[in-house]
C-alpha cells in the first residue's frame, strides 16, 4: 500500500505542475512538487533509502520530461541527502521549521538545476535564475502548511509509515 501511495504521489507530482498549477502559476512560476515530495520522503526515511527514493524520483522525472537525463536524478538525490541531513538536526514536528527547510532545500535544488542547465548549454541570465529559484522555493514553502501535516501524520502513523529493517 505504501509503495502504491508513493507511486501515485509521484505521478500526481508529475501531472499537477503542468495541469492544475498551470492555472495557479505566478508569473509562470510553478511549484516543484516532485522536489517537495522527495524532501518529505527523505525526512521520514533513513539516509540510504531516502537517497534511493530521490534517485528514483529524479530519474522518473528525467524520463518523463525526455531530455537532459541526469539533471533531476542528480538534483533530487542531492535534495534527498540534504533534507535528511537537515531533518536529523531540526525537529521535524515543527511545521514552521519544516517550511523554512523546504524553502532552503528547494533553493539549493533549483540552484543546482540552474547550474546543470548552464552546463548543458542553456542560456539563463542571473536575474532569471534568481527569480525562478526564489519563486519556486517560495511556492514550495507555501505548500508546506497545506500538505505537510497530512503527509507527516501518514508517515508517522498512517499508510505511509516507514518501518526500518531492524524494527521489522
Amino acid at each position, binding site marked *: 500500500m505504501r509503495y502504491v501511495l508513493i507511486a501515485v504521489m509521484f505521478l500526481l507530482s508529475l501531472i499537477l505542475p503542468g495541469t492544475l498549477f*498551470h492555472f495557479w502559476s505566478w508569473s509562470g512560476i510553478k511549484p516543484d512538487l516532485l522536489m517537495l515530495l522527495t524532501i518529505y520522503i527523505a525526512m521520514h526515511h533513513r539516509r540510504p533509502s531516502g537517497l534511493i527514493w530521490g534517485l528514483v524520483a529524479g530519474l522518473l522525472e528525467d524520463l518523463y520530461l525526455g531530455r537532459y537525463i541526469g539533471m533531476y536524478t542528480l538534483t533530487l538525490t542531492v535534495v534527498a541527502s540534504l533534507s535528511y541531513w537537515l531533518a536529523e538536526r531540526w525537529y521535524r514536528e515543527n511545521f514552521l521549521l519544516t517550511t523554512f527547510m523546504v524553502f532552503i532545500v528547494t533553493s539549493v535544488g533549483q540552484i543546482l538545476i540552474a547550474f546543470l542547465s548552464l552546463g548543458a*548549454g542553456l542560456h539563463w541570465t542571473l536575474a532569471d535564475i534568481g527569480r525562478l529559484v526564489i519563486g519556486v522555493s517560495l511556492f514550495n514553502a507555501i505548500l508546506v502548511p497545506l500538505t505537510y501535516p497530512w503527509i507527516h501524520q501518514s508517515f508517522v502513523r498512517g499508510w505511509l509509515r516507514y518501518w526500518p529493517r531492524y524494527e521489522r
Partner: protein
Amino acid sequence: MVRKRVNVTGIAVLVFFLLLGVLIAIRYTGLGTNFPNPVGGAMQRVLSPLEQPILQVGNAIRDNTRALWDFTEVSRQNEELLKKVDQLTGDNLKLKTEILAGMRYNELDQGQFRSPTLDKFEKIGASVVNRNPTTWYRTLTLNRGSEDGVVANAPVIGDLGLIGKIVSVTPTTSEVLLILDGEGQVSALTRGSTGDGTFGIVQGNYKRGSRLTSEGNLQMLFRREDSINVGDLVLTSGMGGVYPKDVPIGQVKEIQLDPSGLLKTAYIQPLVNFDSLEEVYIVKMVGG
C-alpha cells in the same frame, strides 16, 4: 570510541565522476537529440489521458470564474467593449445610411425623368435631416448650406420630380419649402396625350391653419375650354426663373368645375412621396 575513517579522496573522485557522467548524459540527451526513451514514452502514454481532463476542467473553471478573479479587469474590458460596440454600431449605421443614400442618388441619376434643362445645371446631393416640427409650414431641413454653394430660391428635386425650393440657408443647412405648401407656387404646364401644353400655376393648398391630410394636395386652375384630362402629366414650365423646365410635378387626378362655370380646378397627385423623402438634389441655378 572508534571513529569511522572517511576516505575523502575516494569520495571526491566518486563525486567528480558522478558529476562528469551526469553532465555528459545531460549534454547528449538535450533538446533536439533523439535517444531511445521507452520508459518516458510509456509514462507519457499513461499520464496524458489523465492530464487532458484536468486541463479541460481547469480551463472550464478558469473560464467560468474569470469574472470573479479578474473582476476589475473584466469590468474594464466590458466597459471598453461596450464603447467599441457603440462606436461600431454608429459606424455601421453611418455606412448603411451612406450606402442607401448612394443607391438613392444613383437611382435619382438614372431616374424616370431626365430633363435636358436640368442637365445643364450643377446639382448638390443632400439628405433630409429634419422636418418642420410646426404645423404652419411644410418644410424640410437639408444637410447642405451656403458652404456647399446652396443659395435661396434654388429648386429642389427628388427621385421622381419636383419637391420645392430653398427658402433659407445657414452655412451648413438649408430649408426647403415644399410645393405642397400654399406659400409656394410653381409655373407649370400639362401635357396631354396630344403633346400640347397648357400653362397654369400649380399651388399647394396647405394653407396655414387648414386641415389637410399628411399627403397635402396640389391644385391647378384652368379655363373651362382648356383641354385637360385625368392622367395628364404636370411639368414645370420654366417660366418665372425659379424652377428649370420640364421637371415633373404630378399627374392630374381629378377635375372639378368652378361654381362660376368659368374655371375648372385640376387636383394633382404629386409624383414624389413627400412623407418618405430622405435624399434630394439641390439644383444650382445661379451661374448654371
